[in-house]
């Protein structure tokens, strides 16, 4: 047991999936030519003014409602002032004193332990552009396509005590955003980003230690590794009698280490003040109630329901509810299937998810539809095909979209249950393997699997194993 306790708070930035930017009509499309989606407003030309995209407060408030926040009926946009070439106006429009949502929480589970992580606030802001440095041309360029893309920043309390808890919290947030359909959750493209504030303190100490802010965490794995490295680094410092410096540190994914951004990031005084170009945002309580009514079933509730309604284990329920499309797939398949839903869960977790992971296809777009998966399992259940044939056909069915029954018929994959045909094969195996028959009769009943294997070979895997077992037992007893 370590003598130190880890304290982690996370700041998550989520790009909102609006069609247009937060304060102008430019497209938010990712991957356009540099400065293709730019106008006078988002490039900060003199004299222009921002006008709030009405979808942004709706999305932000929905995230707040989904995480038990209070939605402030009046919130205020503020300017965060600093100079950087990717920040066209010399200030970022954000929220400071009066954010749209406050005081929420998110429940996580790590090693079977449930824990509630406090959520300080959610506020709306605009993203900055991107600086591109060209060594070849010895010049820097600015791409403003991303400038003005709407973000929400979700700030947690320093309630997490391990890297695992931090990752569980992040996964839960991402899952909720995906359920609400307000963020695509793509960490590599930066539409779901996180900064981690990490500190340690001696166990039992109330006061927080000095924290480091970790940036450049582009996957759950990076978050985990960076926090673990940082905690170890801070413990080493303190054990050596040195102090932890409050600073921003960048994670280096190649080395698995963090290093100081000193020099680049000096102590900023952002000089926040209310943005006089935007009137305070006032929400009608009726809208908020409507948004609350529109909330879908959220991951936590769905997990509980899946366990109760479908008899799923906790582990499967977590995997099946992480993304709404997968949950919907499972549920549709379970409803189309007359057997135990747990079997569907096994196939979805064991076969469908790895297949989707490899092909990059979304669950909703898989050609093996939920009804066809149910059909495939039914073919296994009624003995038309073996489990092995079923599993072997799975990827083909995902790729082709064929009806499973049709597929099995067309390829002659149906199991042989005809006693006469199977009897001939059993006789042949017995006659060709006199030594093994002798041994079996002498009590080496384990050889049953040998005979079975031989019959399967002759039948090219299509013999019904139940029928074959019975025949062998009859013939050799």
């Amino acid at each position, binding site marked *: 047991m370590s003598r130190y306790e880890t304290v982690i708070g996370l700041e998550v930035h989520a790009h909102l999936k609006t069609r247009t930017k937060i304060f102008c009509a430019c497209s938010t499309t990712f991957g356009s030519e540099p400065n293709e989606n730019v106008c*006078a407003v988002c*490039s*900060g*030309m*003199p*004299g*222009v*003014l*921002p*006008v*709030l995209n009405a979808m942004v407060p709706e999305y932000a408030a929905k995230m707040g409602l989904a995480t038990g926040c209070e939605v402030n009926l009046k919130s205020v946009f503020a*300017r965060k*002032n600093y*100079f950087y*070439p990717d920040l*066209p*106006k*010399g*200030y970022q429009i954000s929220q400071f004193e009066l954010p749209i949502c406050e005081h929420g929480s998110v429940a996580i589970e790590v090693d079977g332990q449930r824990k509630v992580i406090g959520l300080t606030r959610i506020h709306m802001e605009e993203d900055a552009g991107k600086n591109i440095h060209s060594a070849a041309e010895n010049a820097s360029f*600015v791409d403003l396509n991303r400038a003005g893309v709407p973000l929400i920043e979700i700030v947690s309390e320093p309630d997490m005590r391990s890297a695992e808890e931090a990752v569980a919290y992040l996964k839960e947030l991402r899952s909720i955003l995906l359920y609400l359909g307000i963020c695509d959750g793509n960490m590599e493209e930066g539409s779901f980003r996180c900064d981690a504030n990490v500190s340690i303190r001696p166990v039992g100490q109330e006061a927080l230690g000095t924290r480091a802010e970790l940036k450049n965490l582009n996957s759950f794995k990076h978050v985990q590794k960076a926090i673990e490295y940082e905690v170890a680094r801070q413990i080493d410092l303190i054990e050596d009698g040195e102090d932890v410096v409050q600073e921003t540190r960048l994670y280096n994914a190649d080395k698995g280490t963090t290093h100081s951004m000193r020099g680049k990031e000096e102590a900023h*005084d952002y*000089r*926040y*003040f209310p943005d*006089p*170009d*935007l*009137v305070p945002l006032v929400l009608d309580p009726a809208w908020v109630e409507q948004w609350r009514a529109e909330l879908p079933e959220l991951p936590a509730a769905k997990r509980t329901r899946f366990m109760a309604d479908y008899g799923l284990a906790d582990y499967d329920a977590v995997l099946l509810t992480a993304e709404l499309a997968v949950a919907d797939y499972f549920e549709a398949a379970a409803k189309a299937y007359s057997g135990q839903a747990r079997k569907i869960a096994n196939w979805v977790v064991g076969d469908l998810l790895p297949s989707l992971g490899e092909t990059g296809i979304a669950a909703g777009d898989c050609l093996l539809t939920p009804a066809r998966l149910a059909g495939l399992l039914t073919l296994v259940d009624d003995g038309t095909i073996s489990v092995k044939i079923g599993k072997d056909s799975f990827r083909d069915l995902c790729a082709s979209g064929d009806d499973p029954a049709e597929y099995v018929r067309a390829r002659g994959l149906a199991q042989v249950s005809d006693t006469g045909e199977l009897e001939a094969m059993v006789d042949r195996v017995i006659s060709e393997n006199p030594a093994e028959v002798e041994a079996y009769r002498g009590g080496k009943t384990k050889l049953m699997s040998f005979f079975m294997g031989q019959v399967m070979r002759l039948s090219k895997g299509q013999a019904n194993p139940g029928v074959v077992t019975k025949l062998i037992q009859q013939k050799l007893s």
Partner: protein
Amino acid sequence: MSALHTKTLTELAGLLQSREVTAVQAVGACLDRIEATEPAVRALITVMAGEAMARAETLDAEGPDPSKPLWGVPVVLKDLLTTRGVRTTCGSKILKDFVPFYDATAVARLREAGAVLIGKANMDEFAMGSSTENSAYFRTANPWDAERVPGGSSGGSGASVAAGQCFAALGTDTGGSIRLPASFCGIVGVKPTYGRVSRYGLIAYGSSLDQIGPMTRSVEDAARVLQVIAGHDPRDSTSVNAPVPDYLAGLGRDSLDGVTIGLPREYWGGGIDPEVEAACRAAVARAEALGARTVPLSLSLTDYAIATYYIIAMAEASSNLSRFDGVRFGHRSQGAEELIDMYTASRTEGFGDEVQRRIIMGTYVLSSGYYDAYYNKAAKVRRLLRQDFDAALGQCDFIAGPVCPTTAFRVGAKADPIQMYLMDIFTISLNLAGLPGMSLPVGLGTDSGMPVGLQLMGRPFEEADMLSVAACLERNLDPMPLPAL
């Protein structure tokens, strides 16, 4: 057609609609007048001669259009209103070569109403000043006396209208920048209610205070221009979505019966030049003779207005002017190696002293540790000031007072910035409160011989009533002479 330039906009618009004057003649008369007076006045940074003439020819070819109230009328714009394809400098070197690709909403509305834009007017750099001496290009002379300032910051607009170079100009008023030059140049200047005219395309100084308004040679002219530029704009969240009344409908009133005018003791006490007080008192007496009742009242927070105003305006300016960083447009210093050096050199070379002073002070009052003591306190005083005005306007329909304690002062007389800031003492409260106001010329000072402006201040969005009272008074005062240029 002789001396077209002495006519009012209202007169000219009538002549244009009846084809007694063509748009080409109107524009030609203004360009001639500019050529004749500009060497002495220097009101314009850019003269749009070719473009204006081409536009006038197009208008004449199409013929007058009664649905376009400013058809063929030559108009000047303060050079901080963006004009598509025409250089917009803000009176600053940092925007020396800046050509916007978008019109300000007020500019677009003028164009749609048939106006012909003929020039961009000089101004204090980024509207920071009260004399137009802070322009990075040249100073503008007062058409009444070349050794005196035209007021500021819309001094080029005011001087251009007074000199007969155009029939109306747009100015902007952040702390008196329309009313002060109107007063100093002997013309009408209206600062509308905050939110009445779109700020889109107005290169901001103090965003919560700035408002565009007309500067003209008569109240009716101002009403005609305001009618065109007022109204909600979806591109400005602070523009108010309320119907625009008919500003011309009430201009014919011949008495001020039932009108109560409040005279705040803070505006009529000590510190006003006797010639200014005498002219303003005479105008108020004329209003009383026309049936108005006057009541004494108090705007007790007036003493705090200058400090409050400068904190808020400079704070906003420090942030508004951050975009002039040499990265995307405007002046960029050459030869800097590091990013921070590029920023520092570009801004040091591009901004004048007064702009730098206000950026530094604005940055200071927003800094962590000082925010509550300055910005936050100023924001609170501002709310109290508005309450002060609301209470006063509960006792009367309009508040009246001088626009400025003095008439136009001599060039260089206010070298100390604080002395300059004090010129705004009677005008800035109105911007802090967001209310409408105007300057009406009421005569010439008996000592200086320079114009004196009476300020009227009214309730929010009640510009129509204010203009009707001003028009009645204007008709019953001695006609304001034109400067002998």
